[in-house]
């Protein structure tokens, strides 16, 4: 199919196009220079914004943990459902929607690529089966490697090369896209109900520290030449005073930086930017974090922006989820995975009038506004931890408009109003910067060369929003901005129109992205692994790996690894 998107205001930061009025040509799923004007279907985008399809590098949308969240919360689904239509499947869920519904909702907002950030290797088949059932978007998943015994044991013995081999094997076996690190050391400690408190706290029963784990996996990541950096959820997440841990975490891989390329991504940074020593004297550490990030090029962040709503928190950081359960008294799910990882789930309501929640809301926005370079911080809610992804348009309005921030600010806890840094921040992001934070920057840090831009050869994933950047002032007309981003006029996936006026017009499947590491033959290594297998897991070697034919549409990214 051939398409001409005519006369739109094109925002394509990777190609330095800022709201220029121009045509975009699409053929066979790619952006091209020219199409046959007689045959092509024409979309009149005059007065509208034309953007690359949205990219989300951190949203919990599939796998055992997400599904446990769905199971736990029928009350989340009862009033929030979608009917079956001629083209779509039905579904339900506000904060943890069912798979089809997840795909449709992303597509309606103009998103076309999303990444599931936590895949327990033993349950990778489950994650991929759910991704197969998540339509409309390309998707991938990060393999949880933090406290896998094989890694910990290699580190105990200082065998970094062996670490690289294991990591390569498991990424391939799980069809993962990146290395995910969560509360390093803390997860293993949780195996006996404990946690670690700092980067240098030894992991019980293993002679290693969180600092060593982070540094080692960062080296592994560089060694393998993975497209994304290590994707890290810090130690002490969600605890007052943790901004110091976050600063130390970023510092600890400073010397591993590769020229100007980032080597570490600190995810949902809001949860790791708390100053103070307890909940009563909680303050924002956003300024310190932003200052560090502004002065260093080896780190990127995403927001983890809090939304005032009822949501479901879920992470592999099971000891943190236990703390949250004790704090709130809310129901609690825990699921530890042998030799690998853990996870926890607690329903949570963020309230405007609650001092801590309001501070968290403020800290997320402060981070996004204080980090100067939009290529370094991305828009997320750590869906569904700080709120569901459907709130992104609301966050965009807060970022582009001081007035929008003020209107929410008035309603939050008075104590938080006094302590928040927000009133002192005048910056209002431009729509160009929003484009970077919601697609181009994310695609770049993920190493997705064909996504996040509209240059010739890019995947024809395009979002068209009914917003005329010449006619409106986002600062004043923030409600218009919010409305426009909520429902794309058109979402184009792989060159096909899949959404029109916020309605799904076609159900498409989308591919699963994974890193296909090309290594030299590892016969000896595999034999050794096979021997050890039954001592570590309760399943057989032959039944562990995810076969490529399990993926409905497989899109391997080939990477030459030097092992």
């Amino acid at each position: 199919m051939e398409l001409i998107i005519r006369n739109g205001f094109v925002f394509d930061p990777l190609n330095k196009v800022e709201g220029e009025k121009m045509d975009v040509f699409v053929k066979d799923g790619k952006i091209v220079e020219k199409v046959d004007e007689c045959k092509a279907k024409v979309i009149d985008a005059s007065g509208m914004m034309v953007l690359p399809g949205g990219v989300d590098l951190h949203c919990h949308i599939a796998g055992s943990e997400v599904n446990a969240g769905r199971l736990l919360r029928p009350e989340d689904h009862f009033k929030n459902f979608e009917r079956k239509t001629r083209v779509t499947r039905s579904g339900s869920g506000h904060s943890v929607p069912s798979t089809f519904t997840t795909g449709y909702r992303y597509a309606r907002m103009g998103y076309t690529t999303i990444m599931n950030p936590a895949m327990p290797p033993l349950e990778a088949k489950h994650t991929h089966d759910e991704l197969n059932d998540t339509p409309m978007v390309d998707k991938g998943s990060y393999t949880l490697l933090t406290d896998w015994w094989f890694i910990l044991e290699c580190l105990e013995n200082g065998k970094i090369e062996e670490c690289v081999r294991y990591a390569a094997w498991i990424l391939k076996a799980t069809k993962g896209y990146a290395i995910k690190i969560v509360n390093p050391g803390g997860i293993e400690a949780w195996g006996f109900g404990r946690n670690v408190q700092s980067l240098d706290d030894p992991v019980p029963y293993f002679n290693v520290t969180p600092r060593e784990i982070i540094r080692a996996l960062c080296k592994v990541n560089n060694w393998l030449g993975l497209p994304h950096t290590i994707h890290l959820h810090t130690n002490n997440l969600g605890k007052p005073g943790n901004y110091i841990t976050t600063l130390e975490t970023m510092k600890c891989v400073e010397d591993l930086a590769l020229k100007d390329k980032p080597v570490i991504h600190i995810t949902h940074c809001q949860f790791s930017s708390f100053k103070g020593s307890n909940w009563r004297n909680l303050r924002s550490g956003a300024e310190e974090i932003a200052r560090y990030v502004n002065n260093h090029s080896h780190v990127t962040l995403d927001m983890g922006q809090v939304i005032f709503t009822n949501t479901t928190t879920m992470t592999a950081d099971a000891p943190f989820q236990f703390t949250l359960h004790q704090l709130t008294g809310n129901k609690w799910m825990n699921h530890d995975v042998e030799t690998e990882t853990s996870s926890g789930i607690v329903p949570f309501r963020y309230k405007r009038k609650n001092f801590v929640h309001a501070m968290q809301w403020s800290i997320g926005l402060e981070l996004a506004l204080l980090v100067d370079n939009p290529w370094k911080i991305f828009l997320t809610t750590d869906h569904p931890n700080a709120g569901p992804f459907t709130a992104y348009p609301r966050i965009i309005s807060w970022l582009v408009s001081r007035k929008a921030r003020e209107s929410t600010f008035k309603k939050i806890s008075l104590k938080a109003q006094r302590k928040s840094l927000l009133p002192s921040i005048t910056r209002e992001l431009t729509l160009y910067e929003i484009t970077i934070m919601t697609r181009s920057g994310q695609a770049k840090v993920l190493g997705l060369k064909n996504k996040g831009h509209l240059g010739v050869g890019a995947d024809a994933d395009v979002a068209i929003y009914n917003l005329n950047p010449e006619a409106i002032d986002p600062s004043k007309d923030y409600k218009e901005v919010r409305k426009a981003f909520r429902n794309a006029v058109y979402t184009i996936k792989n060159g096909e129109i899949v959404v029109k006026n916020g309605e799904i017009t076609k159900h498409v499947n989308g591919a699963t992205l994974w890193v296909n590491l090309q290594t030299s033959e590892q016969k000896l290594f595999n034999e050794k692994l096979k021997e050890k297998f039954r001592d570590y897991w309760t399943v057989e070697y032959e039944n562990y790996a995810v076969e490529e034919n399990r993926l409905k549409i497989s899109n391997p990214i080939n990477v030459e690894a030097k092992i």
Partner: protein
Amino acid sequence: MMEVFKAVTCPVCACLCDDLEVTVDKGKIVDVKNGCAFSKSKLLNYNGKQRVLKPLIRKGNDFAEVSYDEAVKQAAKLLTEANYPLFYGWSMTSCEAIRVGIELAEEIGGVIDTTSTICHGPSTLGIQDVGLVSSTLGQVRHRADLIIYWGSNPLIAHPRHMERYTVFSKGRFQEKRKLVVVDVRETETAKKADLFIRIEPNKDFEVLQALRVLIRDDELDVEKVAGIPVATLEKLAEMMVECKFGALFFGSGLTMTEGKNRNVDAAISLIRDLNRITKFIIMPMRGHFNVTGADMVFTWQTGFPYAVDFSMGYPRYNPGETSAIDILLRQESDAALVVASDPVATLPRKAAEHLVKNPLIVVDPHMSATAKLADIVLPSTFVGIEAKGTAYRMDNVPLPLKKIVEPPTGILSDEDILSKILFEVRRLKENAS
């Protein structure tokens, strides 16, 4: 030519032991290594006299053999004509077949329910009330020093559970473990226990709540609970508090006795409370080999684990209203498709009576009690023997089911049969509009 298949996943119970070695000779299974008695019995004898080898349609008191096309056409017609059809079973088939089943139920606007409804359904309700503190079975094997089986008899019902995952297994941190059994009779498992607590029937809730009091170091002002001296319960409470990693497994002895989901609620609450003191997990002993998988697929596709009603065009869930037995007892359904289960043999008589009174389609490899009373029988392959697929172990670990022998000539898998029905239903609907 003998061929040995290694790492075969056993399609019997939710332990899903995946270390079976199956020898096939001339297309027939001749030997099974590592399997329990159930496993051997199924794998060696599945292809018995009860096997259905042709699609059947009822003609009066007899069945007539027809083609799959004919049977599928009739089945699709019956289902599309019905107002409120029930789609029941699913615990003994693959996740791939279940996916099609849900799509079919949605397309027709019926209600779909699994055998959880008569088994661990109350566990789900308990979990939805208070949560669940759990882990995979390997975590138990590596770390647990205290194992409790409550209302469950693994030596008989899940024969390799203790050998592979608990008392008789070896892990990284633990080799010696204490075994406690709580039951209403001295089971085979109880005979192996370090501590056996025999409680009065239907008093689980009281015992669990008493333990919740005792682990907080509070006192009980009674001498006995459920016929057990408080001193015995104190001993158990002490074992629980003092272990490094405890694991409680519960069976239908807890879920299907008086109190039902309240019992599960109390058991989970006890374990949750224990986590303030030490590390403890709890896990339901799921029965059929893929009942967990059915819960999983239902949940990710619809948001709800069982008893899902599509009659309004979107998933609704209200066990008691939208669950199979209740619908049958209220005589609301007007047709049914049964896949991979035998409700006539397992449901209350009144419910089964309503089921067979209306058009009934059965997809099953066997001439089961339900198939005998059906209007249409669509014979299928045995998944895990003659067809591949995915199943979930009781601890949510997905495992591949293998195809090790060819099915009888012309016999289709559950997944294929359901896809054909779905295709035909869509065709009928399109023609009608």
